[in-house]
Structure formats: structure tokens, C-alpha cells
């Protein structure tokens, strides 16, 4: 008999997480927990200025402090050709600054000492003389006629523009706008934010002079990319580099890039011949590592008299900071921003984007999203809401008029949708919220001077890069991998190229093997995050692990099953063609009681193989997905604003997600709730801004606000299931959907409440002060830097 899939922890089982046993006992292994013999500690000296010429760096006093082993400057890095490094967007980034500092927090020098306290003392003893220059903190300043040139290090760079990109059909879009019955416009700013995992970034670089092997313990979401990048940057042989990403305290995109600290620690270990640990502090993390968002949108919709959208224009200015080091696929200079409006049937669209160097931290990352998809969906849903409000149509109805309903579907900007049922998703969400009833309550409340608002956000997003035709990072194609080894006793080890930072890979990836082979999930150990022990993969971000490494796990398991079939045929003395498979077991078609379990086959692979069959039961797969997966969702928020203070409270939040087949529903729900909390954070409090001198406001957790359990709303989750047509088990990415689609639901709810006042936009975060200003002054409130009064 087949094993019961749920009871052995297969697809759909709410298996308790394997990871938890160590983490709840305080026995996790985070990078900072490792203590190697002879290990030294590194601290980085950062620039206090956003833009300044470096006149001199005097390290004499730092060298004199007892316990200091090494003081590194840009000059010393340059002697090894390491003062600059290539970025993931084909630009260059200073490792330690030599000529100028270009953002506040930029790395200027580093000290290696016996302990971090001494290293910090020594950093303070380094004397740097700066000659301050004017700072640029937004794209408008960057392109002003008198703007100082930030990247004067680059030959041929004469302005502060770092890329220009466009997609779509301009001529046809122009015609659609000429014909339009209505044109609706919206400008808005998606503020800079930071993924801000609670654990900061860090590494232990351990170069062994005896073996010439470099081991890097590192908080990285993409250990294999780091290995290759280090090999290229530091000119070390790749087989002599081992990257170990141990337990990671959250990533959310922040731990994808290569940071100067990694490079400096590596060189330091090579120079001193001892392990060097560098763990950044929170301020270092917030002011210098991969930020997110910081985009200025101008958009318009051409709408016919029935409410059908006929054309779409989006123009975006991005603020990329001092170095163009966005972590994103090569071909797409503004990530997957062109996924905007994918769920809507719009015949013609045109999108232009321009990137800008500014005196702010570099490294735009996909903060809990698939390369700028969050920004795309936020602007999409804000513009849709504004349009519905302007033309006086119910926002749910306006969406229904415009949803894509036939698949496959080529979107306005050229992406290929393979499945979806947006109306079903929205309809369920409206029903669960009690939409009609709530609209009546809202109308009643308005008569009493109460401000209740309902916000809708619907979207589909592309998750799970590649395919390799379109997606690569620094030339490496975006596939992923799995390797499965079944031991003689039927227990198995799975090795994957992706790397968990809390997503629960050690649990869910075992469940995929269970689904394919019937081996209980408790009999499968998942290895990941060690480049010496796992197949090459692009890592975990952009919700890509299940779509890619998850698919590879299925394919590797199926190869193992194909070999097990040969072994079963041998054991049962029949032809392979006479065998049928049911979960966990082959049986003879005409005699179902005669069978061989997968465990029988595993034992036979080592003890009783047929002549001519190679021993062992293992295989691997590199999976190159044919398309992205397209999960979709409807998020509804109901809020009430206190008109006296502008404070808004979330009354209800309903989320309906379709992420295809759910491997472990418990984990999926956990990811959705976590994503919603980050969406709420963005809409309400979490952002980084700057004053006019480029001083970062949001440099610690007292200024950079994150919601606590007290503010965070309760979530009501529901699901619809449309299996992904091309994924081996019908799964789609999910980890980031709620962060992507969520923010617009909150903002649309506040704007819906304020609609009678004629207010159309308040930039995020929708602070109570901004709401109060909108109510009292009856105008829109913008929120880009520099902050007023600074």
C-alpha cells in the first residue's frame, strides 16, 4: 500500500520545523557565534560626511594602541589592487575610500585587533582630514545644472546619471492617450527603506597560510555567488575558497550583495595569517548596506468611457546612491519594474526609467521582493485607486473591468503570464471582509464626521528567476540545483544550492522529496549554505527557492526514482514495464501485493544490484525554469482615522493569496503574515531619509522605526489555489507577496477615508502628522528628502 502522504510529512503537511529544535534552545549557529582559534576582530571607520574630499588619513596613533595588529586604508588596499571592486550592476564601488567619500557611512579605514573594543578604540584614533563638498540627496538635485559630479573617478562620466532604460511601445501608447475619454495621473514617491534583518552583516575570513585555503563564514543569502565573486575580485583560485553561510538572522535581500567589509576582512586574514571576524553594528548596517526603494513615479492611465484602461505611461527616477551596485539581473536596469500592471489587460504601455548617483548609500536590493516588484505593484495599485476615485467608480469594480482573464497572456510590458484567476481571489477577499456592509458603515460614519476607509490591492507578480535566457547576475545564469543521496537504510541527504534565512528550507525541501519518493520527511536531512558541500546555486532571494531549487529537488528525486525502478524490477524479478509506482513503493501491475518499497530499493542499491547497474542511489539536477511563477493576491485593509491627530488604526486586514500548491501550509502562512507586517511597516513608519547635507536620518532603531507587536494589526488569511502550470509540483514563490502587495492596501485605505476632502496622495510612510496636515490643509503631502526644515 502507498504510504499516506500527510502522515509521512509530504506535500500539504503542516510539519513542525526541523530548524526550531536548535533555535529555541539557543543552539543556533549564527556567524557571530563562531570563535576560531587565534581569531582577531575587525572594525571599520566610516565617513561622517556625505560628500567630501579626503585630504589625509593618519593612522599613526591607531598603530600605537596595544593589541592592534593591522590598520588598513585605501592606499594599502590599492597596493593589492583592491581599493575598488566591481558591483553586481557592472559599476565599480570603493572598498576603502581614497580620493573622496561619497556617502555618509562609507568605509574609509579598518583596524584588526585582539578584540572588538580595542579595534573600535583604534578606529577612533585614526585622524582623517576631509574637505566637505555639497551633497546631493535626490534625483532632482542630481540632474540640476550646477550639480557637483559625484563619480569623477569614472572616465567619461560627465553627469550624475547611472543608467537609462525603457520598455514598451511609445508610439502606440501616445495614440491610446490621444483617443482616451479620460486621462488620470498620479505622482508619488516610494521612500528609501532598509530590509533591516535583526542580525547585521558579518563574516569570519579564515585564510590558512599552510593550505592556502580561504574559508569565509558569512551572513550571505547567496554563498555560491560570493565564492565566485571573491575568486574574481581577490584573484584567488575558486576551488580554494569555501563559503559557509550558517544560520542567518533574517536577510530580506540585505544579505545578497558583496560588501566592502567582506573584502577588507579577507585581505586582512591573508595579511595576518589568522582568522579575522567582522560583525557590523546596527548603524553600519543601516547607513551603508543594501537599501531598497527610493523611487519617484509619474504615471498616467488612458481610460475609455466604460472604465476600460487603454494605455499606460510610467516614468521613474531612481536614486541609486553613490555606486550603482543594485543586486539585480543584468538585462533589467530597474529590476522587474516592468511587471507593473501585469494583472490588468492594457493594450499599450510605455515605461521609462533613469537612475541617478547621489550622496547616499549604494546597493539597491530587492527588499523582500523580486527585483523592484514591490515598487511596481505599489505604484500600480495607487494609480488604480486614484483612477477609480477620479472617475467615480467602485475600486473593486474598476479592477474587475480591467483584469486579465485569458491565459497565457503577454503583458503590456512584454512579460508572459501563464495562469491566474484574479477575480476569484478578489471576490473571496471582498466576501471575507464583508465589503458591501462595510461600505454602508463607511457612509454612515462619514455623516457623523468619522473617517473610515477601505483599501484594496490586487496584483500578480513574477517570482522565481530565471529562466536563464533572460536572467543572469554578473553573467551567471539564474538556475538552481539539488543533489539527493539515499543511504542503504533508506535515509537520505538532500543538498541544495539555495540558502534559508528563516524560510524553513530544512523542513520544506525534505517534504518535496517525501512527495516524490515517499521517504518520511523525518528521514531526510537537508544540507545548504556550504559551497564545499552543495551544488552551485544562485541562493535565496526574490522568492526563488521553491520555484528553482524546489523544482530541482523534484527533478533529482525523480531521477532517483527512475533508478529505484530498475532495482525494484531486479528485486521483484519482473520487467521495469510491469511495475507501477505509488507513493513509497513499486508494485507489480498484475500482482499489487508484490512490491518493493523505496527503502528496499535503497538497500539493494548497495547490497544487491543487478549486473551492469552502477551501485548507489543518488542523483542531482540543475533546474532552469521555463518561466517565472506568477502568484497573485488580493489584500484588503479597513482603517479608521482620528481626525484630531491623524493617527490611523487598522480595523481589519484580509489577505487572500494564491501561491499555487502549498508544500507546508504552516510555513506559507507564516511567511505571508511576516510579509504583511513589513508592508504595514513601510506604509506606517519604516523609512530612511536625509537632511540637505546628506546626513542619514534612520541610522539606528530609535530613528528607523519598526513596528512592534503592539502596533502590528491582526491578519485574516485565506487562500485560493491555482497550480503553477510549469513547476513540477505546481508550487509558486510566496515569501514576499504580502510585502509586495500589502503597502498599497494600507495607503489606499487611508486615501479612501480622506477622499471626500479631495486629497489624492500622501507619500509613505503615512505618518499621523502627514495625515493631519492633509486633513487640516486639504492638500496632498509629499515626503521626499531633504526633509523640510533641514
Amino acid at each position, binding site marked *: 500500500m502507498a504510504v499516506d502522504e500527510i502522515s509521512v510529512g509530504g506535500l500539504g503537511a503542516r510539519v513542525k520545523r526541523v530548524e526550531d529544535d536548535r533555535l529555541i534552545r539557543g543552539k543556533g549557529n549564527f556567524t557571530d557565534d563562531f570563535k576560531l582559534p587565534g581569531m582577531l576582530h575587525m572594525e571599520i571607520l566610516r565617513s561622517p560626511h556625505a560628500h567630501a574630499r579626503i585630504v589625509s588619513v593618519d593612522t599613526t596613533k591607531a598603530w600605537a594602541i596595544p593589541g592592534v595588529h593591522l590598520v588598513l586604508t585605501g592606499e594599502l588596499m590599492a597596493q593589492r589592487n583592491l581599493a575598488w571592486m566591481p558591483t553586481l550592476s557592472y559599476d565599480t564601488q570603493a572598498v576603502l575610500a581614497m580620493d573622496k567619500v561619497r556617502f555618509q557611512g562609507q568605509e574609509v579605514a579598518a583596524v584588526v585587533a585582539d578584540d572588538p573594543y580595542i579595534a573600535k578604540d583604534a578606529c577612533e584614533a585614526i585622524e582623517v582630514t576631509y574637505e566637505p563638498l555639497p551633497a546631493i540627496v535626490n534625483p532632482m538635485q542630481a540632474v540640476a545644472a550646477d550639480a557637483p559630479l559625484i563619480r569623477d573617478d569614472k572616465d567619461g562620466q560627465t553627469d550624475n546619471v547611472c543608467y537609462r532604460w525603457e520598455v514598451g511601445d511609445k508610439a502606440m501608447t501616445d495614440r491610446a492617450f490621444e483617443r482616451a475619454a479620460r486621462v488620470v495621473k498620479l505622482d508619488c514617491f516610494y521612500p528609501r527603506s532598509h530590509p533591516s534583518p535583526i542580525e547585521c552583516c558579518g563574516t569570519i575570513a579564515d585564510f590558512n597560510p599552510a593550505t592556502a585555503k580561504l574559508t569565509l563564514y558569512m551572513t550571505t543569502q547567496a554563498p555560491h555567488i560570493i565564492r565566485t565573486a571573491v575568486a574574481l575580485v581577490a584573484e584567488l583560485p575558486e576551488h580554494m575558497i569555501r563559503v559557509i553561510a550558517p544560520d542567518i538572522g533574517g536577510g530580506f535581500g540585505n544579505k545578497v550583495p558583496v560588501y566592502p567589509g567582506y573584502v577588507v576582512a579577507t585581505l586582512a586574514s591573508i595579511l595576518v595569517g589568522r582568522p579575522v571576524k567582522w560583525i557590523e553594528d546596527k548603524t553600519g548596517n543601516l547607513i551603508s548596506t543594501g537599501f531598497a526603494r527610493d523611487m519617484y513615479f509619474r504615471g498616467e492611465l488612458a481610460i475609455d468611457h466604460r472604465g476600460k484602461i487603454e494605455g499606460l505611461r510610467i516614468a521613474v527616477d531612481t536614486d541609486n546612491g553613490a555606486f550603482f551596485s543594485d543586486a539585480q539581473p543584468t538585462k533589467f536596469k530597474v529590476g522587474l519594474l516592468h511587471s507593473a500592471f501585469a494583472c490588468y489587460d492594457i493594450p499599450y504601455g510605455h515605461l521609462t526609467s533613469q537612475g541617478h548617483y547621489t550622496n547616499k548609500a549604494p546597493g539597491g536590493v530587492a527588499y523582500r521582493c523580486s527585483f523592484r516588484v514591490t515598487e511596481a505593484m505599489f505604484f500600480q495599485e495607487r494609480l488604480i485607486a486614484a483612477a477609480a476615485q477620479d472617475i467615480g467608480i467602485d475600486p473593486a469594480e474598476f479592477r474587475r473591468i480591467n483584469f486579465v482573464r485569458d491565459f497565457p497572456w503577454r503583458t503590456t510590458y512584454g512579460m508572459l503570464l501563464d495562469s491566474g484567476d484574479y477575480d476569484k481571489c478578489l471576490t473571496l477577499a471582498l466576501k471575507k471582509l464583508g465589503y458591501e456592509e462595510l461600505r454602508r458603515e463607511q457612509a454612515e460614519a462619514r455623516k457623523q464626521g468619522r473617517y473610515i476607509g477601505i483599501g484594496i490591492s490586487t496584483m500578480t507578480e513574477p517570482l522565481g528567476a530565471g529562466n536563464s535566457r533572460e536572467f543572469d547576475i554578473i553573467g551567471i545564469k539564474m538556475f538552481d540545483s539539488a543533489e539527493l543521496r539515499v543511504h542503504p537504510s533508506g535515509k537520505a541527504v538532500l543538498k541544495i544550492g539555495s540558502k534559508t534565512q528563516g524560510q524553513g528550507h530544512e523542513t520544506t525541501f525534505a517534504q518535496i522529496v517525501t512527495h516524490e519518493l515517499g521517504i518520511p520527511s523525518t528521514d531526510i536531512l537537508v544540507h545548504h549554505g556550504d559551497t564545499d558541500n552543495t551544488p552551485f546555486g544562485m541562493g535565496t532571494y526574490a522568492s526563488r527557492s521553491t520555484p528553482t531549487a524546489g523544482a530541482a529537488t523534484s527533478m533529482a528525486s525523480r531521477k532517483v526514482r527512475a533508478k529505484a525502478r530498475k532495482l525494484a524490477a531486479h528485486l521483484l524479478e519482473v520487467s521495469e514495464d510491469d511495475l507501477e509506482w505509488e507513493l513509497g513503493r513499486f508494485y507489480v501491475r498484475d500482482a499489487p501485493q508484490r512490491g518493493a518499497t523505496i527503502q528496499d530499493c535503497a538497500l539493494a542499491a548497495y547490497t544487491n544490484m543487478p549486473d551492469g547497474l552502477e551501485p548507489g542511489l543518488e542523483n542531482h539536477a540543475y533546474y532552469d525554469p521555463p518561466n517565472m511563477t506568477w502568484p497573485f493576491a488580493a489584500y484588503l485593509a479597513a482603517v479608521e482615522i482620528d481626525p484630531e491627530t491623524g493617527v490611523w488604526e487598522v480595523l481589519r486586514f484580509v489577505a487572500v493569496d494564491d501561491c499555487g500548491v502549498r508544500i507546508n501550509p504552516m510555513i506559507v502562512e507564516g511567511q505571508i503574515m511576516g510579509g504583511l507586517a513589513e508592508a504595514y511597516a513601510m506604509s506606517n513608519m519604516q523609512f530612511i531619509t536625509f537632511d540637505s547635507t546628506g546626513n542619514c536620518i534612520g541610522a539606528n532603531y530609535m530613528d528607523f522605526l519598526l513596528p512592534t*507587536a503592539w502596533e502590528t494589526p491582526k491578519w485574516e488569511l485565506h487562500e485560493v489555489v491555482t497550480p503553477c502550470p510549469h513547476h513540477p509540483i505546481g508550487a509558486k514563490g510566496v515569501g514576499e507577496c504580502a510585502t509586495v502587495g500589502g503597502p498599497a492596501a494600507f495607503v489606499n485605505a487611508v486615501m479612501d477615508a480622506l477622499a471626500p476632502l479631495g486629497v489624492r496622495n500622501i507619500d509613505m510612510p503615512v505618518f499621523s502628522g502627514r495625515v493631519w496636515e492633509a486633513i487640516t490643509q486639504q492638500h496632498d503631502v509629499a515626503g521626499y528628502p531633504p526633509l523640510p526644515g533641514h
Partner: protein
Amino acid sequence: MEIKQIKVTVNGEPRVVEVEPRLLCVHMLREVLGLTGTHLGCDTTSCGACTVLLDGLPVKSCTLFGIQTDGHELTTVEGLGWPSELHPVQEGFREEHGLQCGFCTPGMMLTAAALLEDTPNPTDDDIRWAISGNLCRCTGYQNIINSVQWAARKMEAVHGR
């Protein structure tokens, strides 16, 4: 810098520890005593990843000097359960999926354990308020609330209170 000797009871065990006066409690626990279950998140008393119990009350060990614990009792996550048995709060976090990356979890659990000592039958709002000094970026908090409620039920069943 001058080294001071302090006496501190850590997870029930009396310890004599040599510390620089400026050594933070979190570093004393992690670096001197090897108890790496206490994590350092923000350095500013904001995130709560470094929460430990000082004489039974939750404190943030990133803004406490080791020397200030002289003569006191500290409980870290390593002392929350027993070698053969988890604390109900630890079980609750596993049963209700109250953790994802696990970095905030030790501090979160210690705060919750202290709450349940005081308030055996908390409301959801009691829990939300109690853990409002502990930030979590992964879970959206809802499952943490459920985890603490699970622990409260278990403790009530075991202790009959």
C-alpha cells in the same frame, strides 16, 4: 584596562568572572561565558534580541555592563528549559510556528516566560504589550502571540493554576 572580578549566578550556577568594567553584559555572556544563545541586534536597547532575565526580570544585555550583574542572577535561553525538557514557552514557539530565522527568539521567549510568571492567563493584548520591546522581522507577531498562549495553556494544565 583594569580587570575586575565579579560573582554572578548564571542559569543557576555561581560563576566568578573577570571583566573589563566597560564590557557589556551581552559580550560577557557570549564571549567570556560562551553562551551564544543571547544575540546582539541593535546596540541601542531597541530590538530586544539580547534580552536576558536579571533576577527574573527581562533586561536588555546590550546596555548593561557585565560588572553591573555582580551579586545578581542571570537567566539566558540556555537556562530556560532543562537538559531533558523544554520550557513550555520553547515548546509553544515550536508548536505554533512562532519563529522563522530564530534570531529574536531567545529574547522573545525570555520576555514571554517572565510575563507568564506574573500573568499566567494573559490576554492577547497582555502578550502584545509585554513583548513590545522585542522586535521580530519574520513572523508578523501573530504566531508569537499564539505560541505564548500555547505555553500559558500548557503551564496551566501542568501546574493546575
